[in-house]
């Protein structure tokens, strides 16, 4: 071990520590504040209590907004998965005229039309359709936005399923429906699960769409409600915000860990899964 080597090692670990701290320190607050008897915006060793949880759970809209989030996100995730599954199978296996152009168009759309660039027409459209303040409307808009990317990821999955599975079933006389039910669907299950979780996580964290489209506080999902917690004086309600933040993050983290342990974290470029 030369001195230069030692110096390099020390430098290496210093950099690693600095990066780790950069990522860890901002998160400390959500680990300490929820359990602190007098929560503030600072990080400190908490004065342990569960009082904040009691306060949060008795907040008139806190649990309600979680239910709203669940409603919106489950609807979105199921719709995205079902429609993307059908579309990606057809696109992967059947030579539909204009397929390549369609795929190219979808790829462009999914990156070009973003929530922020289309917020005005979406707002106006939903307004004129009478879907303002509708949780179903929020789910529809989210589904439309997530579908192109979902079709792409799933088509990748379906493309990777060997065609010999279907051919084999076909040689043995299985009908199209039997092939889809007995072979394709079970084989594609990891892909479907990934998309389901991906769509759920994405819509769970989506702030802009419900923020634009929902007016009544009793219909707001957690992502929006969290922004509006204030106490009687109008300043941020610090006994509710940290706990709610923590509770609201749990589903996302749990789902991520689940997919990661069950199917391994497959890198779909840019896709949280």
């Amino acid at each position, binding site marked *: 071990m030369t001195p230069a080597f030692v110096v390099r090692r020390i430098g290496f670990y210093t950099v690693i520590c600095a990066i780790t701290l950069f990522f860890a320190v901002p998160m400390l607050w*959500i680990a300490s504040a929820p359990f602190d008897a007098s929560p503030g915006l600072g990080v400190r060793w908490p004065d342990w209590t569960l009082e904040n949880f009691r306060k949060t759970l008795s907040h008139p809209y806190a649990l309600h907004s979680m239910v709203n989030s669940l409603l919106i996100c489950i609807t979105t995730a199921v719709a995205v998965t079902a*429609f993307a599954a059908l579309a990606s199978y057809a696109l992967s296996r059947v*030579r539909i005229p204009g397929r390549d152009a369609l795929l190219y168009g979808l790829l462009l759309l999914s990156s070009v039309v973003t929530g922020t660039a*289309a917020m005005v*027409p979406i707002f106006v459209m939903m307004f004129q359709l009478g879907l303002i303040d509708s949780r179903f409307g929020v789910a529809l808009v989210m589904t439309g936005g997530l*579908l192109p*990317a979902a079709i792409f990821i799933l088509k990748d999955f379906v493309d990777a399923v060997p065609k010999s599975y279907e051919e084999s079933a076909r040689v043995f006389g299985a009908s199209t429906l039997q092939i889809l039910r007995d072979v394709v669907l079970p084989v594609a299950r990891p892909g479907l699960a990934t998309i389901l979780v991906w769509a759920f996580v994405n819509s769970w964290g989506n702030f802009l769409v419900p923020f634009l489209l929902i007016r009544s506080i009793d219909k707001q999902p957690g992502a929006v409600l969290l922004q509006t917690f204030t106490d009687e004086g109008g300043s941020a309600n610090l006994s509710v915000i940290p706990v709610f933040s923590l509770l609201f993050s749990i589903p996302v983290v749990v789902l991520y860990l689940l997919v990661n342990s069950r199917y391994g974290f497959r890198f779909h470029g840019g896709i949280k899964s």
Partner: protein
Amino acid sequence: MATPPESVPVPPVPGRPARVRGPAQDVAGLGIGRAVGFLAPALLLIGAFLVFPAIWTIYIGITNYRLTGVEAVSPSIVGLSNYTRALNDALFHNALWLTLLFVLGSAIIGQNILGFALAWTMRRARPAVRRTVEALVLLAWILPSTVVAYLWIAFFDRDTGTLNSILGTQGTAWLIDYPMVCLVLFNTWRGTAFSMMLYSSALQAVPPSQLESARMVGASGWQTLRDIVFPHIRGHVLTNTLLISLWTANDFSPFLLTKGGPNHESETVPVYIYNVALQGGELGYSSAISFLLLIANLLVALLYLRLLRRRS
């Protein structure tokens, strides 16, 4: 729409299994009719909630449509006057400039470099270290944006904020005094995971034998990076830079931290569109700006797709 920034398909990373040989065909006997039926629901939803709004932006952008008042009921066509107004709008210029700073600082420099540094150093780190660091970086990426916004508001807080405690600068209102610096730090923290993962898999594709050859001839770490690694991952660097730039330019989360303030000092284009449209009620004008953003997105996306094609 609901597509949050991190959801654009990325080119297949080298190392994937090759596609099965032979022409694509209808192995299950679905038939074109049923295939179109399978596609229809998805295409309808995409058409209604993605394509139609994008096209409608063009129309609203040439009207004086407003959220309230007479123009809300019967808007009239005003031609290109919204666009000429944008040309002379100091606040729009300000938003463009801030967006550029935001993209340059947090995406092109911040996420790119930090992501690559993480991918490069974690490659040979001990598994425990690697797992911990990667988990933290990923956590920053998957947490809901509203929650993340609170984390950073707390971190930057004037009185008890963690940053002030660390630096001993109690009383510095970071989000008010240095809003853009805060946003750049925040977005670097939030988005580095993507670059890290993309570069990790890109680095796996660099043949170890070439790295070993470089070591055999005594190349320094920097020489190895420049002469061996970079030529291999040049395509990934471009892809990554284009994608994260696109997402950062369209990111709405600055709104959650600063709402564009103080005094428009952190008002990036997306936040500006929101403020003009729903605070100011000028739907026509904000649509014109949205359309400009769409065009900018389209240009970047086309550039990206061209690169993809050339590589494949």
